[in-house]
């Protein structure tokens, strides 16, 4: 037996496609967010709120990576410029979106008419942290019923986030969630991340989130 040295990153194939996706998005002037969370934390609700608020200001498209249904895509269909649902495309179901799935979804999108692309990842706090998709910014949502220990239990996804959202703030009186503890853990892991406290149900805090999205999209467009 002969031993050969390899030293090759196994994630490189995904990263190569992700870079290609980002180049395509940059060329067509599309700003992309990868939205990640546990199931039920409010990815779709945040997308719906963002679509409503940014209507008339940005053309927004959505890629839905939900595992089992088209319910999410139907909900956003009426508000978005374009919606592509990944799991209807004969792809095997997966616990995370990967760059190749986005590459294929982008082929069906009118990119010249899109300013902002919201990518709803599969509900999962572990797997999506390993795969970049070509997004410009990574967003993680935690909701109050999940508890304030999620950054400690699932550090990777928080370490790479550009924005962390605490959703369902309207439930604060009813749950044992210490905002300061949560924010302290996030700041420890990732001092550069923005933290937003909001409620998709009452719309509290949505305005500040949407201002950040607009500002990031503009900053990104100016760089090109």
């Amino acid at each position, binding site marked *: 037996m002969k031993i050969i040295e*390899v030293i090759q990153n*196994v994630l490189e194939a995904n990263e190569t496609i992700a870079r290609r996706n980002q180049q395509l998005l940059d060329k067509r002037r599309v700003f992309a967010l990868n939205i990640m969370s546990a199931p039920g934390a409010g990815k779709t609700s945040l997308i719906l709120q963002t679509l409503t608020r940014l209507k008339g200001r940005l053309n927004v498209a959505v890629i839905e990576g939900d595992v089992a249904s088209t319910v999410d895509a139907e909900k956003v269909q009426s508000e978005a410029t374009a919606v592509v649902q990944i799991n209807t495309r004969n792809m095997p*179901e*997966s616990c995370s979106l990967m760059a190749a799935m986005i590459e294929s979804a982008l082929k069906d999108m009118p990119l010249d008419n899109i300013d902002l692309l919201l990518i709803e990842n599969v509900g999962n706090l572990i797997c999506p942290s390993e795969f970049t998709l070509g997004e410009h910014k990574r967003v993680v949502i935690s909701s109050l019923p999940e508890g304030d220990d999620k950054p400690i239990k699932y*550090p990777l996804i928080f370490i790479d986030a550009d924005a962390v959202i605490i959703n369902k703030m309207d439930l604060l009186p009813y749950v044992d969630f210490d905002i300061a503890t949560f924010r302290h853990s996030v700041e420890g892991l990732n001092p550069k991340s923005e933290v937003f406290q909001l409620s998709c149900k009452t719309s509290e805090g949505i305005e500040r989130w949407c201002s950040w999205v607009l500002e990031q999209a503009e900053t990104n467009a100016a760089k090109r």
Partner: protein
Amino acid sequence: MIHQMHEFGITENIVNIALAKTNEAQASKVIQINLVIGEMSGFTPDCIQFYFDSLSKDTIAQGAVLHFELVPAQLRCRNCSTIFKPQDTLWSCPKCEGQSVEISKGRELYIESMGVE
């Protein structure tokens, strides 16, 4: 539809790299693949092995032994630069008790070397 864990795509990459490197080395069989995998990475060796057995079937990598070298997690304190091992989920610096830390080791996933014939 078949449900797949994210190790599936990763294992496809492992098989593809192994086949290409074996070809480059003008060898005809993959005997072993030595992988380095971080303790903090989201990948499970058993799961990679499971997919490898089916993905390598009928290729020159069929039957190859996967060897996993696990890299323990190592953290670095952003305050005082102390390097330490995380204790369960408690990530505070043993020296200054600071909780602003970064992962310095434990996220890797790469093929280090291979045995071919």
